């Protein structure tokens, strides 16, 4: 692509440049002036938007392990076109999370301490190690894409040999990691609002991330089809409705499982009474369940809607919205009443978060442009020297 085309201003390019510029200034202020001067976090509310976004980023990145396991462990090769985009999404999602965690640390220069100073009785220890291990696994899973580009045959061969153990390790780490975010809140039964507090919180987190992660992949497929056009030099980025419809069915199953578990939890623990109390928490909980669970279950139950691209797109937005509400409700809304303080993120918190999201999107586009992410044609197998069909998106 010519430099003139890259520099040609478009609406989203201008918006992105503004967001990144503001984000860079905010990052500078955050590291030069400290958390207290640049955020609305304090001793009563030590965790805010950034932690909420960590939960969100990890939840939406769940398609990485779900799709990889479906294709490589259960051999449902129909979903193979989604593997590479899903793994890249997961990797970038986790990278955003890692960056936000470093920004969020009071002493960011000590970020390496958990590696050597083990506190095996802390849930944070499990989270940290799962985060590190799964990000490493994602790197290994995505490495063949980079190695193929530079035709490094020997490392690809080694990675192919250990691909199944890597995928299994990825599933284990992400299962632990996704659920341990829920476990983190088990230690605050008196502080987290009963609408969200549950001893089943780890299971809720795990099931909801599967539905949302797959919805994210559906949503992302539409973004790819919308933005990565032939005019920009992209090929094989069109919608594969049969694959997406299959993913939507899996979303339906996960949503139903999550909803049934929630009903059981409410009935078993006598929490139904809280639904009748008029409060901000109740309204937000209702919105979360209606938007992110009940409506999607209803629509996805009809096959004609699952095979309709318009409804798939809308429902993927609904499910993602449900996850946004759920994770931010658990991490912020549900704790607000007990803390007695109203928290709203500062400009710097918002701009740094938005900058990282924009940078992740930019990285995705750059990698998609220069690496074989959407290949769907015959090419020579770099390991065996045979002609093979790449079924990637």
């Amino acid at each position, binding site marked *: 692509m010519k430099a003139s085309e890259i520099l040609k201003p478009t609406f989203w390019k201008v918006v992105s440049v503004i967001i990144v510029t503001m984000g860079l200034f905010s990052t500078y202020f955050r590291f030069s002036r400290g958390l207290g001067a640049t955020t609305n976090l304090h001793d009563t509310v030590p965790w805010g938007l950034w932690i909420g976004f960590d939960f969100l980023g990890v939840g939406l990145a769940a398609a990485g392990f779900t799709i990889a396991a479906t294709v490589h462990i259960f051999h449902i090769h129909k979903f193979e076109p989604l593997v590479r985009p899903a793994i890249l999404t997961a990797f970038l999602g986790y990278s955003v999370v890692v960056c936000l965690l470093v920004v969020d640390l009071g002493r960011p220069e000590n970020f390496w301490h958990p590696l050597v100073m083990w506190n095996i009785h802390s849930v944070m220890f499990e989270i940290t190690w799962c985060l590190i291990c799964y990000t490493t696994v994602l790197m290994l899973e995505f490495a063949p894409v980079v190695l193929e580009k530079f035709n490094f045959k020997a490392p690809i061969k080694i990675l192919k040999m250990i691909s199944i153990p890597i995928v299994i390790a990825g599933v284990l780490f992400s299962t632990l990691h996704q659920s341990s975010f829920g476990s983190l809140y088990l230690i605050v039964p008196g502080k987290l609002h009963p609408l969200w507090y549950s001893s089943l919180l780890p299971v809720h987190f795990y099931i909801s991330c599967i539905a949302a992660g797959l919805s994210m992949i559906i949503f992302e497929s539409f973004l790819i089809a919308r933005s990565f056009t032939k005019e920009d030099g992209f090929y094989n980025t*069109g919608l594969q409705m049969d694959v997406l419809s299959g993913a939507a069915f899996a979303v339906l199953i996960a949503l139903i499982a999550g909803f049934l578990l929630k009903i059981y939890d409410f009935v078993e623990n006598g929490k139904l009474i809280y639904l009748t109390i008029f409060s901000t928490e109740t309204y937000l909980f209702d919105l979360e369940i209606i938007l992110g669970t009940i409506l999607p279950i209803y629509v996805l139950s009809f096959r004609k809607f699952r095979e309709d691209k318009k409804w798939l797109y809308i429902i993927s937005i609904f499910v993602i919205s449900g996850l946004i509400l759920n994770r931010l409700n658990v991490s912020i809304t549900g704790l607000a009443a007990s803390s007695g303080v109203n928290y709203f993120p500062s400009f710097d918190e918002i701009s740094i978060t938005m900058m990282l999201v924009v940078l992740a999107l930019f990285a995705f586009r750059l990698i998609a442009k220069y690496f074989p992410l959407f290949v769907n044609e015959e090419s020579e197998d770099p390991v065996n020297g045979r002609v093979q069909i790449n079924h990637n998106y």
Partner: protein
Amino acid sequence: MVAIFVLILFLLIITLDLLVLKIQGKNHPAFEPSLPQFDLLMFDENNLTIPKNIFFSKGHTWLKRNTDELIDIGIDTFGTIALGTLSILKFAEVGKELKRGEMIFEGSYGNKIVKFPSPVNGIVKSVNTNIIGKIISDPYETWGVQLISKDLPGNRNIFLSGSEASNWMKKEFIKLKSFIDDHSPNIETAGTTMYDGGSLSSDMTSTLVNQSTDDFEKEFLSL
């Protein structure tokens, strides 16, 4: 309120993107007009009815054992209507020893030529010249080529039949819709007639899949 703020921001960006596309005169992939012709094909169960004793190759030809070594070969429903109406132009020569994958039929959709590969090795015994240039109304009763081949009994696992074939055929129609969406240089080229529920004419198809025949063959007519 943080949750509501983030949710509104997320929905605002999506709405803004739709508005930007509208101003640019483009369609978001989710809201592009659908192609009723293909919706119809996809859900027309008659197109998915698979006769007994017929095997399907992934190159969209069907095979039926006529006598011990004689196999009737024709083009399946998908092949006959995929991109409009197929017109058979020529067959492999009588007496020729065909290898699996070599051209057995050549046809056209509008002015686009496509080649169907032979599903098995064999010698061409006879060809059905009566169907040249005609519409094939009953694909599974209309064979095009008879091959002398011993390949069918030993290789049944590479062919599809029964419900397996029916499911595969349905997936092929769904895949075709994505293919059309992907290869249409400009969705408007399909013409307003299609969006109003009309038929896909050969001319429209030619425009729609302009220079995409190779992709079509690779995607749908390879074994």
